[in-house]
């Protein structure tokens, strides 16, 4: 049985690794490969950085006022009918 991940396999299981979805033996193989492979270290760091950067994409933090108004007006109607 093949006991080491190749670099090509590493880039395909990185998402499972981050989600803690690798079986324990594969998690160990993943970490062992990282301990000696500079290329995969860079790749895994870049995926981590990609996730971090994606989390900083600006998001709309409040509703457009007209939409908020419409939702509250809808609530008043619902209350009348309720």
């Amino acid at each position, binding site marked *: 049985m093949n006991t080491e991940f*190749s*670099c*090509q*396999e590493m*880039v*395909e299981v*990185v*998402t*499972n690794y981050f*989600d803690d*979805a690798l079986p324990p033996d594969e998690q160990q193989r993943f970490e062992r490969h990282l301990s000696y492979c*500079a*290329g*995969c270290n*860079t*790749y895994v*760091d*870049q*995926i981590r*950085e*990609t*996730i971090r*950067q*994606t*989390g*900083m*994409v*600006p*998001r*709309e*933090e*409040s*509703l*457009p006022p007209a*939409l*908020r108004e*419409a*939702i*509250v007006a*809808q*609530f*008043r109607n*619902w*209350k009348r009918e*309720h």
Partner: protein
Amino acid sequence: MLGPETLSDETALVAALRCGDEDAFSALVDAYGAAMHRVALTFVRSSAVADEVVQEAWLGALRGLDRFEGRSALKTWLLRIVANIARTHAVREARSVPFSSLELAREASEYEPALPVDRFQGPDEQHPQRWVSFPMPWSTEPDSALLSAETRKLIADTIAGLPDGQRIVISLRDVEGWDSAEVCSVLELSETNQRVLLHRARAKVRAALEDYLTIEAP
């Protein structure tokens, strides 16, 4: 007036809503309305349709209030309602491809490597499946492009151009910060298929950043 402490007591909040308490309703809209709107926009793209979806979702929530049993958090319950309505609308928006959990599962089942195969050595080379050359590290200097608004724009544009399943999963997981179980539940996807879509989406965003950030050796 309802403060944050009232919002944290969901049983009291739901009781106040059932009595028609407008302050309670407004507090809820201010807490979760923007997140619901963003989720709607992830599914339907058109902002007019997203507005309709959000209104329909709030009405659905009010009408379904008696069925809310507190098994999930109120926020999760609201987001699930908006996602379900948005999905229905996305189908009606008559895109060329039917939009369903079945279609997302099909998208996940297609073979697609995270990186082009020529980044790795072939079977006849010295070290098969190892890097041809290592990825170039990205600069993390304080003034590097990585920290710029332009980078965020590049990421947002890359995500907008992804196939439906990948776009929705990365938006919910990495932009909105949902966990895997929440995304699977709302999209009716298996953990495996959800992760495949996320994996591809992240690989593509990384590739876009790589093109943009890699410092060429002089």
